[in-house]
């Protein structure tokens, strides 16, 4: 690759010439640099593989018995209604047309002080415990393997009896990103139990009458 720079010697007898500088540029450093860059890019592209978010849905049982449906306490239930356009409605408890008054919808959004704040307040206990556990690992007070830590966090989530049970419901105007965003919030706020369920007719009515 490197090139020999041959100094030209005067051919015509006797005539003296000024010393000439070769106009050739040695490209070797550039090639070296490019090799480094290529190696760098090859390594980084291998890391930027698509990421996935895993969700597991409950099995759909055809012969579903309403008596066997999991019972969830009303005071722990947080309903999140998505209707697109970065609007999130939520209410606590259960909307039952037989038991008026219906709960009122509160309007919020996907920002930091929006739904996340609500989720953090409701999930304070579990969130604090998990965050403290993680902090201990980061500061080096606790040395455990990643899998052990994951299992420990899973156990904490499973044993949690105070945190909200979030029911995510989306109407026909909702976009796919709304669902992904809200599931993401669940992961950020360490919500132990959440499910994606269908809207009931009452809730559709509630969205219609909701504060704009």
């Amino acid at each position, binding site marked *: *690759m490197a*090139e020999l720079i041959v100094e030209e010697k005067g051919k015509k007898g006797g005539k003296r*010439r*000024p010393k*000439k500088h070769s*106009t*050739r*540029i040695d*490209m*070797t450093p*550039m*090639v070296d640099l*490019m*090799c480094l860059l*290529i190696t760098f*890019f*090859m390594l980084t*592209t291998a890391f930027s*593989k*698509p*990421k*996935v*978010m*895993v*969700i*597991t*849905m*409950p*099995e*759909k049982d055809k012969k579903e018995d309403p008596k066997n449906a999991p019972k969830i306490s009303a005071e722990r239930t947080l309903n999140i209604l*998505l209707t697109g356009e970065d609007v999130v409605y939520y209410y606590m408890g259960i909307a039952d047309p037989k038991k008026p008054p219906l709960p009122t919808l509160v309007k919020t959004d996907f920002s*930091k002080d929006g739904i*996340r*704040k609500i989720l*953090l*307040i409701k999930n*304070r206990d579990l*969130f*604090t415990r998990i*965050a*403290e556990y993680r*902090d201990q690992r980061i500061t080096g007070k606790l040395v455990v393997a990643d899998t052990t830590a994951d299992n420990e966090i899973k156990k904490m989530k499973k044993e949690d009896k105070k945190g909200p049970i979030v029911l995510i419901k*989306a109407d*026909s*105007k*909702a*976009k*796919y*990103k*709304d*669902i*992904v*965003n809200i*599931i*993401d919030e669940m*992961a*950020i*706020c360490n919500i132990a139990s959440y499910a994606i369920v269908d809207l009931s007719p009452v809730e559709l009515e509630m969205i219609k009458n909701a504060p704009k």
Partner: protein
Amino acid sequence: MPKIKAPVRTPHIDMTPMVDLFSVLLIFLLLTASFRPSEVKPIEAPTSVSEKQAPDNDIMTILISKDSLIFFNIDNGKDTSTHFRSKLLQKMGEQYKITFTPAELNRFGKMAAFGMPIKDVKSWINASESKDRDLLQIGVPTDSTDNQLAWWVRLARLTNPGAEVALKADAETPYMTVKKVMDLLQENKVNKFNLVTNLMKEEVTLKDLPPKQ
């Protein structure tokens, strides 16, 4: 004193190293291009904090574009000699009474995501120009009378029982379309979905916790 004129020489640069460089770059680009699956339609996945990586093999991908068109893709598996794609197409052909020649099956095995009614698959495989091929990509039909996507999923599950399902939808896709696909998958006993997202880090620490009232 007269100036001594330096004879004019044409400056010539030796191009060999540059040629080396460009050949290397070209090889690199060619290699990466083959890794990235050619996409039918641009799909802008939503962002999430998930850092889990998508599996390399044994993955069935359902792509949903912004305008709710559905495309299907499945890989050949870890061991390429299994030829899952070709087997799947053969089964699909038997289902819809279409016979594919071994050459067509083989060719299909090397192709990427597709989305068209089964009757057009043959012309898609045999299309010589990519332009013609793209024109055929009108989405897999999912009507209740002829739900071809359900058959693709069902037969893909039979061909490669170990395949996981990845769902790659555009952020702006209506949720109802995604829900329809998810319901269909659940009917085929797929209860675990890998939603393809782009990583966007976001962290909440104890400091962000709102104060107790």
